[in-house]
């Protein structure tokens, strides 16, 4: 089983060497100071890690977001939260295990957590449908969110899905409608909502539980309108152009923050969340708590107004086409910074 990415190799090799030294000092000739060697390798490891991880490409981040060892929703539920009481079913058709939800405790706050859940191995993935929800998952999510709203519990949505499931049953039971209704209803829920993209933010399937007062994203997670492979297949006619597509779509946490499409980047331990899930969970906890306390301090009407305006302001456009002279004056390629969203309230 290969649980490493190509660009992780130098790090893993050093790590293995270090482990070896620590485990079997007797295999080394006398007279050599192990401590010194260990120290040197530790230093090299740290440097290598920093070097690799400060220059990740968009595609490398996508790979990290999909890393088979990356912490999933239930891992965060076990570490970031202190209690979790799972609640099941959409009361309409079925229990969709690609979405988990239930009561949880975050610090001193009792909250409702909803999250998409991937499987760690084949058996789990069959149960979780690889983290791709059917309509029932979205309807269960809405049922639980309404329950939370009724009793004043804040909602925390953890997003990690390649997308909603493209299947026959999903179409027959109107997955598009299930997502759309969530988008509309989440707009009006009076309780605070925080969404955090912890791995893959796959298009409508992610947004379907992702309308929130604050949208946070882990440093190596991505959020995209289409998978890089899907985009590559359409535009470059080959899925292997996925790396190019990942770059063009601007789907990394940093890109999305610059474009004002997310509110906050949650840092990960150096080397990615999977290298230190405990620390990753703790960082997430702090960010969720800070945001939750800020949101709770706002009056309901104000929170709803801000939530509406946040989405209202999304998307740049021109009121009318540029004139020829304006075009000539404009830079050839849009600058890295986004055009300020034209947030004109009609």
């Amino acid at each position, binding site marked *: 089983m290969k649980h490493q990415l190509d660009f992780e190799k130098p790090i893993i090799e050093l790590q293995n060497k270090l482990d070896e030294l620590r485990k079997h000092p007797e295999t080394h000739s006398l007279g050599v100071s192990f401590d010194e060697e260990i120290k040197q390798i530790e230093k090299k490891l740290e440097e290598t890690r920093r070097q690799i991880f400060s220059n990740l490409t968009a595609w490398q981040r996508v790979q990290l977001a999909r890393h088979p060892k990356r912490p999933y929703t239930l891992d965060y539920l076990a570490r970031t939260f202190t209690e979790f009481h799972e609640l099941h079913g959409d009361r309409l058709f079925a229990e969709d295990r690609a979405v988990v939800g239930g009561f949880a405790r975050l610090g001193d706050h009792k909250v409702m957590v909803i999250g998409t859940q991937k499987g760690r191995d084949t058996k789990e993935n069959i149960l979780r449908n690889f983290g791709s929800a059917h309509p029932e998952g979205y309807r269960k999510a809405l049922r639980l969110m309404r329950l939370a709203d009724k009793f004043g519990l804040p909602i925390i949505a953890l997003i990690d899905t390649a997308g909603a499931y*493209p299947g026959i049953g999903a179409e027959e039971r109107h997955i598009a409608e299930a997502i759309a209704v969530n988008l509309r209803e989440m*707009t009006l829920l009076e309780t605070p909502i925080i969404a955090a993209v912890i791995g893959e933010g796959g298009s409508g399937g992610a947004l379907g539980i992702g309308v929130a007062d604050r949208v946070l994203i882990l440093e190596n997670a991505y*959020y995209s309108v289409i*998978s890089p492979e899907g985009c590559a297949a359409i535009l470059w006619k080959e899925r292997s152009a996925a790396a190019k597509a990942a770059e063009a779509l601007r789907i990394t946490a940093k890109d999305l923050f610059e*474009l004002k499409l997310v509110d906050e980047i949650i840092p990960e331990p150096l080397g990615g969340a999977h290298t230190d899930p405990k620390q990753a969970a703790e960082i997430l906890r702090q960010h969720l708590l800070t945001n939750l306390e800020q949101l709770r301090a706002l009056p309901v009407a104000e929170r709803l107004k801000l939530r509406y305006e946040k*989405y209202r302001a999304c998307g740049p456009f021109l009121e009318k086409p540029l004139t020829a002279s304006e075009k000539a004056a404009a830079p050839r390629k849009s600058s890295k910074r986004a055009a300020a969203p034209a947030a004109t309230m009609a």
Partner: protein
Amino acid sequence: MNVSPQPNPPVPSPPTPLPLLPPVSFAKKPVPPDPSEPAVTPPPKDNPTTFVKKPKMAGKPRKREIPEGLWTKCPKCSTMLFDKELDENLKVCSQCQYHFPIGSRERIHSLVETCTFEEMDAQMTSVDALGFTGVATYTSKLEAYQRSTGLKDAVVTGICRIGEHRAALGVMDFGFLGGSMGSVVGEKLTRLIERATEKGLPLIIISTSGGARMYEGMFSLMQMAKTSAALAYHAKARLPYFSILTHPTTAGVMASYATLGDLILAEPGAMIGFAGPRVIKDTTQAELPPGFQTAEFLLERGLIDAIVPRNELKERLITYLGYVTAGRNCSSGLAKS
């Protein structure tokens, strides 16, 4: 496949008092979208369809002795249809009721009372905020489609009168980048919905789309949330919203405003769904059931209130508007103003 089989015959120019209108060249091929991901636009075609727009013949349907236009072959029943008659029948085959694609302008013309359509944001234009370069740049795509369609983007919005009802109307156009939803489509529809909420107007949106527009990345996805949020407040004000699904409506548009209507209507035979059929086939390795993702299929499975042929739509809308405005909320809100 549905271009004229015969070369344009030289018209033996009969003495006619009216200046002949240019014949409609109906070279538009109905292209079912095949979004390989949910919420995403289908591959834009390299040569955008040309769609010569013809103003509706004012009044007199004249008897014709000589064919003066082009013929179009119905892709469903293969009948040769005279273009002018096809136009008069709102691009519906008189033999088999096949619904040809129809542009947003013609659609509006077929629904609203004469001269009552006040267009909103007619000049609004997309920008390439991501600096998107694939095989071609987004800007060059936009310019090509603007030239070929005469449209600025994939939706036309405005306030109009239908029968005696004032209404907010948004009509998408598949001819512009596959009807894909980027920031302009999202913004124009959101302004329309907000205007309807503010003025207490019923809202009608006629959709046809391959989904969210890939070239604007996450900005496009957020239009789903933006339009749905505006609809939340329109619904909260207890104002009616009718969503009309036409061929094809898929992906991100389906997963937002298209499925949020108080009434969801569809045109016969329209392809309607979330994921593309090929993606579903590849993912599930299963045979798709007959009629999968058609309007009829979805009516049987409970999504669609009614299937309404195009040439009955206006009347049907007036009837439905009569019902939904008969109750308590509408006396003040829906007054003609």
